[in-house]
């Protein structure tokens, strides 16, 4: 299923506003939070925690379900509560079956399956039925919803352009 879409993140564009997280929690939980969002922005705010003389950096990255083709969460679930949605390709938790054993959390290589203390079940990104709200609310364009086989394009193009720029600058001095 080449047309299955996935959430793709390009840190170059991320402004760190975390609208993805508030939109996610609002849509899926009916209340806004950061802690219960199924997508997580990882932050390094170097400027906030250093002296002026220290080197520092500001980095945002994203962690969310990659909707793996070989999903450990699905393989490890003893009650077959992890199911693949045929329409969207998303890995879904069947809340009627989930027994809250958290084996899927053990299996997930990215730590993106959350345990919901109220429901006593796990929850994860299920692509909002095919219209992921995180992508919809990403004003900077860092998050995109793309076919799996095209997920690399934007990043590759950006890097390629940078290489072209560098080469053309270098060729002004001496031919490469």
């Amino acid at each position, binding site marked *: 299923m080449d047309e299955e879409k996935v959430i793709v993140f390009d840190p*170059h*564009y991320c*402004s*760190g*506003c*975390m*609208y993805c997280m*508030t*939109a996610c*929690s*609002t*849509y899926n*939980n*009916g*209340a*806004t*939070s*950061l*802690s*219960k969002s199924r997508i997580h922005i*990882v*932050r*390094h*705010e*170097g*400027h*906030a*925690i*250093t*002296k*002026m003389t*220290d*080197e*520092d*950096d*500001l980095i945002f990255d994203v962690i969310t379900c990659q909707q793996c083709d070989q999903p450990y969460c699905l393989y490890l679930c003893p009650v077959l509560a992890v199911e693949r949605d045929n329409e969207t390709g998303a890995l879904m938790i069947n809340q009627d079956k989930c027994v809250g054993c958290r084996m899927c959390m053990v299996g997930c290589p990215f730590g993106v399956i959350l345990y919901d203390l109220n429901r006593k079940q796990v929850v994860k990104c299920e692509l909002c039925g095919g219209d992921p*709200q995180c992508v*919809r*609310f990403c*004003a*900077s364009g860092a998050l995109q919803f793309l076919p799996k086989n095209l997920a690399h394009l934007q990043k590759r193009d950006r890097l390629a352009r940078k290489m072209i720029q560098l080469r053309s600058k270098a060729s002004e001095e001496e031919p490469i």
Partner: protein
Amino acid sequence: MSIPAGYAGNVLIINLDNEKTEILPIDKFWANYGIDPKQWLGGDGVITKILWEDFSTAIEPFSPENEIIIATGPWTATAAPQSGRAMLGCIDPKTGGFGSGSFGWFFPSMLKYAGFDIAIIKGKAKKPIYVFIDDRKVSFRDASHIWGKETGETVRMIREELEERYEGEIRVLSTSVAGEHLVKYSPPCSDGTTCPGRSGAGAVMGSKNLKAIAVRGTGEVSLFDPRGLLESSYNAVKTFVDNEPFIKLWREHGATTSLGTTMDWPISGAMLVENRKEADFPHLKNVGCLDCPNPCYHWLQIKEGKYSGLRHLGGHMTFLTVCLRNLGIQEFGEWIHYERLLQELGLDPASFSMAYSWAVDCFERGILTLDDTEGITLKRGDAEIICEMARRIAYRQGKLGNLLADGVAEASQKIGKGSEMIAPHVKGKEYIQRDVKIQALMWSLGALTSPRGGDWLRHHNVWELAFQPEKRDSYPKFLGKTCAEVYEESLKLLDMPDELKKKIFGDSQKVDMEWIGDIKGKALFSVWTENLVALFNSLVTCMFGSATMFLMVGFGPTTYSEILNKITGWDTSYDELMRIGERVFNLQRLFNYRIKGWDHKDDTFADKRAYEPAQMGIFKGKVVPWDEVLQEYYSIRGWSSDGIPTRAKIDELGLGDVTKKLNLPEGD
């Protein structure tokens, strides 16, 4: 009273005297303070009401009596656009009157996720401490080893001590060395990023021995109509991004870029933009607070020169304005270093730069001598001397450092010799533009009427500036549209009833030089703008939502009411929301009148050059008719000619009960 959706539900009252805390359900708190949330919302609204109830007479701002009030609003921490903001209020150490400031990044939302809409800090700790709000658990920690540390180190040490589980989990609002040394214009700073800049609350924290407040919030904020909120927010952002004339430029380059297009900058817009294209301007990316679709922060890195390698999150308008205009620092590397330094030391860039700039004037006139400056030849443009003075002020070192740490109003009173006549302040607070008579009328009027004293952030309407003839060439270049097109678009986008538009702008839909150069409609536009600002400061959301380029054509009351109704389940209208803004603004005026006696006589510039004929600008060759505009302004506001809200106006705003002991003019 039940608690509406959108509120976290609790108020935290911290008493530093005995290190005790009290958690009150917010409905009980509202009842104690006579607050109807539909009339005051949150943020500046509740800060004003709390200050009103708690202080009926003037106090010494550095006494333990003063309070620090951090107030979020129903908008904060939801999925509404720009929901990362809160207001921080106190009795302002510079003016002794109403003080508050807006701040963002992630502290405000974290406080709400911890379960608190409002946190009030009272009393004074016996030794330096910091407070940790860990969801509903509040603890007091020793801060003697952190006392004396600058902003970045403070944040790092506290986060390490509290063992945050991932970076940014704990948010820290701290004061720095300037606050500890009671520099009267020292703001607190949150995570080395955002400051309620003009509040002076950093010094109030210093006076309370309170180094910082740290918060971790893992909860959530309930909503009346979550999916509806998402739809309304999405549409609002889309409309904003599709229509706001400056938004494309802003989103490509951040807050400062488009200033060249609309404002009278010594450095032209062309240089700003083209420098960035050539990557000489060390801009790496734009960064925003929670839920921000048009981020204003620049992530900056200096690549060459003395400060090579220095990185900084900032590039803000105020810093750029004062650096270029008031301090004469021309080199980008220098001003980024200056911005970072002030943030580390905890100094308000506006007040500091005006204090320095005023001191240079005094030095050049011989009012300050080399003896006063301890051998330093004060001048503009020399970043090294300026940064050295910033350090001396922050630590109150030396004669001049100590003098300027109190700000220009007090300093000029102390040294006299005519320095009072060139001191750029209103009611004890510095304003940033030096020569108010060559600026736009509304912008300057805002400095006279702001409840915080000389200030521009409670008004900041630049319609006159943006459409002056000399700016017109820059529009096609940067926006791909003519000045006239932008004017017409902006007029259409302005979220106000047609009738009001007509009263303000007259019949013409075109750029009208007669209007720009006249006082016609300005007072009315000012009143509307101030009410709008008081409104979004009570919601609380960011000023860059409604006023990306200070034309007030972004989010307006219509959008605010639609989204607020989805959050809370209320059915507020445009008029009701604007009425809230008006109510808040009026009570701030009354608060200052009650405790400071401020009225018409105080709505004056201390710098008497404001009352001389202007050498250039809209009022070239004329004296700006300040009093005429003020009287029109008072009359529109329903205030007496002494600038005091009348009984009739007060009753109309539903403030009759709270002000009944006050002797007010009757009005009609």
